[in-house]
Structures are given as structure tokens and as C-alpha cells.
């Protein structure tokens, strides 16, 4: 495989009439890496992805996939890209197998190879037993799985998934997330857009937060979370006299705040998980019996709120 990133794009810009849908977006994805584009409705995710898939010409900017420049006129580079559109793009009156074989042919596979890959993808997406049925008889989740399978058919280097779990039941959703996880394990670079914070947290090695067409933050989950101060809230419930315990904890350098409440102690700390044992040990020393511990870590939702003053989903 060629050294260097699978996808690199920079300075992407695109306007529709008066609306600037994408305004200077750029990022890089390595092989085996899953990159999440997280943003609210209308943030510019689909527009960005359409440009990367070569379906929309940017007004400005540069896109390179495995060393080959992407544009609406560059046809050959598309063999490297798998594109899973936000809306289902499947023939409802063909079977799953027919859909797969057809698109396999469009990816340039000989007929026999297309049939072979179709069978493999049907296994992979768990649709093998319904392969011959017309797609319009499928459940929403099955259609979503096929939609993704079509993007995997030709073993792309870069797989682009545009909100692949929208409107999917929890079971299918989990299956989809699992398959994306395994793809990254095979060395495919994955670009995943979503406005579900939990999906981005679970899947993505790095996340770009996009709002009003611009990338306002980028990094690993922990890096992003540290932007909001990285403080975890620890809520301890315990009876009795808690003053000495709270005072002892307040002296630790990783504790930013310790306050005694009616039922226990509330702490604001850095790295709560790593310090839980120490907190409990201090309780034992102070003769306090802890009844329950609740740790709340900041998440990407909080990051988004911090950066924009708005919730990701309203």
C-alpha cells in the first residue's frame, strides 16, 4: 500500500447560491483509521462527503485519495472509494444479489467475480438467506445493511458512510457499527458522518466537529474532551460526618472542587477513573462508608455545547 494518508483534503469550499455549505474543511485519514465527521443537521457533512466521493465539484480545495486527485471528472480514482449515501440508493425491484452484481459490474468486475463478491458481501451483511428476494420486501435495517454492502463490494481503500444508521432499529444499528469496526481492522480508511455522538465516540479514532460548514475542532475523543477542561464529576453517597474526608480529598492536586451535600460529597476531578481507588481509600481512612459512586465524564456532546453554545441535536 502506498505510504501516506489514504485521504487528504484541504481548503474544501462549496456554496449553493447564497448558502456557503462548506467553508474551508480539511482533514486527513490514515489506513485503518476511522474518522468521524460530527455535526448537526445542515452542518455540511453530506456536501463535504459528496465532494470527496467525486460527485460534487468543490469551489475551492484539493482532495487526494491514495495519491490520486479526486474531481467530478476523475473517473478511475473512484475504484478506490466506496460510497454509502445517506439515503438508500438501491433498486427496490431487484433482489439484493442483483443489486450487488450490477454495481459490481459498474466497478469493473467481470461477471463471475461480481457474483462471487456479491455472495461474500451477502454473508458479511447477514442477508444471504434473503438474497433472492426483492429489496422492497426488506425491513428498513436490511436495506441499510445492503446499502452499506454496496459500498464494500469492490474492497475500497476509503469507505465513506453518510449517516448509515439513521432510522435503524437498535439491533441492526449494532450490527452496522460492528461491521464498521471490523472494516477499520482490515486496514480500510473510514469516513463516517453522524449526528449521533455515541456512534462517533464508539467508532471513531478521531473526530472532526463540523458546524456551519466549518471544522471547529478535531482530535481524538480524549483530546476533544480535554478542551472542555476534561473534568469528571464524581458523586459519592455516604451517611455520617463527611467533613474530614472532603477536606482530605480537596488537598489532592487532581481534585478541583470538593463539596459536601446533604447525602454525600460531590467532586470535580481530572481523570476520575484512575483515582476512584484513592477516593475510596480516603473514605476508609476517614471512617466513611460509601454507599454508591457515580462518575460522569464529559462527552462530545459537552464539547459541542462548549464550542458552539448549542446542543448537537435539538
Amino acid at each position: 500500500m502506498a505510504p501516506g494518508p489514504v485521504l487528504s483534503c484541504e481548503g474544501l469550499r462549496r456554496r449553493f447560491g447564497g448558502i456557503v455549505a462548506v467553508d474551508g474543511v480539511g482533514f486527513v485519514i490514515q489506513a485503518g483509521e476511522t474518522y468521524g465527521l460530527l455535526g448537526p443537521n445542515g452542518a455540511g457533512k453530506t456536501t463535504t462527503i459528496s465532494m470527496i466521493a467525486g460527485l460534487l465539484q468543490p469551489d475551492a480545495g484539493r482532495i487526494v485519495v491514495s495519491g490520486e486527485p479526486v474531481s467530478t471528472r476523475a473517473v478511475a480514482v473512484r475504484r478506490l472509494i466506496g460510497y454509502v449515501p445517506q439515503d438508500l440508493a438501491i433498486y427496490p425491484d431487484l433482489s439484493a444479489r442483483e443489486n450487488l452484481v450490477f454495481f459490481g459490474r459498474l466497478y469493473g468486475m467481470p461477471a463471475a467475480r461480481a457474483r462471487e463478491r456479491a455472495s461474500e458481501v451477502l454473508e458479511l451483511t447477514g442477508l444471504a438467506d434473503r438474497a433472492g428476494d426483492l429489496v422492497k420486501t426488506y425491513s428498513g435495517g436490511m436495506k441499510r445493511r445492503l446499502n452499506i454492502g454496496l459500498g464494500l463490494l469492490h474492497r475500497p481503500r476509503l469507505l465513506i458512510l453518510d449517516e448509515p444508521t439513521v432510522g435503524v432499529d437498535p439491533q441492526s444499528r449494532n450490527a452496522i457499527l460492528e461491521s464498521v469496526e471490523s472494516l477499520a481492522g482490515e486496514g480500510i480508511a473510514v469516513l463516517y458522518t453522524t449526528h449521533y455522538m455515541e456512534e462517533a465516540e464508539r467508532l471513531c479514532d478521531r473526530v472532526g466537529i463540523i458546524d456551519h460548514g466549518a471544522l471547529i475542532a478535531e482530535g481524538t475523543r480524549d483530546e476533544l474532551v480535554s478542551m472542555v477542561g476534561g473534568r469528571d464529576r464524581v458523586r459519592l453517597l455516604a451517611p455520617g460526618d463527611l467533613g474530614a474526608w472532603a477536606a482530605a480529598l480537596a488537598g489532592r492536586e487532581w481534585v478541583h472542587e470538593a463539596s459536601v451535600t446533604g447525602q454525600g460529597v460531590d467532586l470535580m476531578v481530572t481523570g476520575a477513573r484512575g483515582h476512584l481507588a484513592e477516593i475510596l481509600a480516603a473514605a476508609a481512612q476517614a471512617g466513611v462508608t460509601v454507599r454508591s459512586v457515580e462518575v460522569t465524564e464529559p462527552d462530545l456532546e459537552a464539547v459541542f455545547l462548549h464550542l458552539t453554545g448549542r446542543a448537537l441535536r435539538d
Partner: protein
Amino acid sequence: MKALSIGLVNLRRAFRQRSNVFFVFVFPMLLILVLGVTFGGAATPRVGVVSAGSGPLGTALVRQLEGLPHLKVVAVGGPAALVTDVARGNLGAGLVIPRGYSEAIRGGRAVALRYVQRPDPSSRQLGQAIQGVVAAQAAVLGAARFAVAQHAAPGFQAGLAAARRAEALVPAVTVRPASAGTVPFAQRVGEFDEGAWTELVLFLFLTAMTGAVGQIEVRRLGLSRRMLATPTPPSAVIAGEALGRFLVAIIQAAVIITGSALLFGVGWGSPPGVAAVVIVFSLVAAGAGILVGTLFRNEQQAIGVCLLLGLGLGALGGCMVPLELFSPAMRAVAHVTPQAWANDAFARLVGDGATIAGIAPQLAVLAGYAAAVLALASWRLRRVLTA
């Protein structure tokens, strides 16, 4: 190669729906059958006969005429009315059997029958058929007179009876108009033929028009985008769409033509000529379907316009009322439609027995239409796909 894959998927989808199979194949053939049975009779030439007071031999002659295939005998009151009706085209031809025809023949006198015809080939042909019948009766009457003259029969009635018995034993000799050279007698247009080609032209175009709806669906579902996201250039997607529509039309034509020929005995004329018309007209129809498909965003808007165009252009182009019945001005207007040219081509192939060379002008015009419509459709579709 990819265009072929796209075309074949279109084809598969078009014929997967049962209702489509009905409307594309079965319905047009049913119409050919129904129209053939309903109007085909009216299209058989009507021969007016004046026979009042002509006696039993006159009646016998009328019976004989009625026994002829492909014509209908109509009784007319008098010679004046007959001439008027033939002149107006209400009757294809007319025959006057004079009063006293039987007595005159019995009496051995020569009798002249008056044949009134229109100055056209079909009227002349009718005349030949009628002459044949008259000649047959004359032969029998001659034989009867001969028997009497030879004293083989006691009187004319007996002689006639003997001659009729003898006639039944003599092998029938019929005379058919034969043709030599390249311009034959006008072949008779059979009962179903005219309805058949106009229905074919009508439905080929209608089907291609409704194909526009399918193309809009493919775009709306994001399938065109998805195709373009594969290493498939827009030109292959466009060619594939056109190929799909074209294949549907060709198969529809092949099924209707062979089906109607086998089931109802419809004559279609010279096969190379028919194939040529079907191919160029299918190209026009495929292009028109794609063009209309690019003008609308959703299927509901498109379907009404497609039906209107399909039926409207069909009607204007002579698919519902034959072009011969149009006024000259209307006929000129009708030839704005490709349907009119296709109908003309079939009329020459079926009606006049023309070969492919004989319909070269119509083919050239249709090829021009095909090139123009396909070019426009490709340009529009490329714009819509890559917008």
C-alpha cells in the same frame, strides 16, 4: 460494456412488473384484435348492386357476389343513387343488373351489365372480382343454352339445371391477379393490418414515455448518483439509460409483430423494411422518453405529461384516425410527429408492398428525428446528472 449492464438492468426492471407486461404486450395486441374486428369490417369494400326486377338469374348473380370474400354487397334502389354513392366514396364500386335480365337471357339475347367504378386501383380490383363472378355465371348460362341448342335438354330450365350439375363436377378455375415487375397491384390491406401498425406506433412511443417515469425514479432514489460514484463515466450512464429504453421498445415491437402475425394473421410487409422502421422509431421513442424524464423531478408530474404526449402525438400522427382521413393541411401538420412518418412507412410496406428501399424517405426523416432527440436527451441528462 457498463452501458450494456445499465441497459440490461433497465430491461429487467421494465419486464419484472406483471402490469407492465400486460400494458406493453398484451394490451396492444388486444386492441389490434378488437379494432380489427370492429372496424376491419367497415374497411372491407362495399359493392352496391341494383337488381330490382332482374329475375331469378339476377338474384343468383347477387348470391354469387355475396359469396366473394373481402367485399360486402349492398342493395341499392336505382342506378342514379348507385352512381352518386360510388362518386361520394360511400361505395367502393357498383353493379347494375337490368330489369328483365332473366327473361332476356332465357330468350337468348345479349345483356350488358353496368359496372360503376371509382378511378382507383382497389375499385379496378373489385371490378375484376365481379367480372369473374359474372363470367362464371355466363359460362353456366352458355352451357345451358348449348345444351338446349344441342337438344340435350328439353328447355332452358332443364339445360340450366344440367349445366349447374356439370359445373359442380368441373374443377374450379379461379383467376387471381398476378403481379410482375416491382409495382404490383395494390395488395389488399387485410382486416387487421391497418389497426395493427398504428397501434404498434402508438404503444412503442407510449411505453418509451412511461420509461421516463422509471428514469426519474432512478434519479430520485439516488441510483444515478451511486452509479456515478463508481468508476463509470456519465456518458456510459446516459448510453445505458438510452439502451434500456431502446431494448424495451425493440422487444415490445418484436412481440407485438410476431404475436399479431401468428395469432391474427396480420401482415406487416417486407421484414427488412419493418425492422428498419421499428429500429429508427424505437430510437426516437427512447430519446423522447429520456428527454421528458429530464424535465421533471418527480414521477407524479411526469406521468401526466408522458401520457398526454404519448396519446396526443399518437393521435396527431395518425395512430387513432388514419392520416388519409386528415385534411391536406392537417396531414402536413401531422408530419411534425415522428408517428406520422412511421405510419406512412408502414402504410407503404403493408399497403403498397414496398421494400426497404421504398420507404427510404420515411426512414431518413425518422433517423433525423432519432439523432436530434437522442442528442438533446443526452445533453439534458448529462446536465441533470452532473448538476
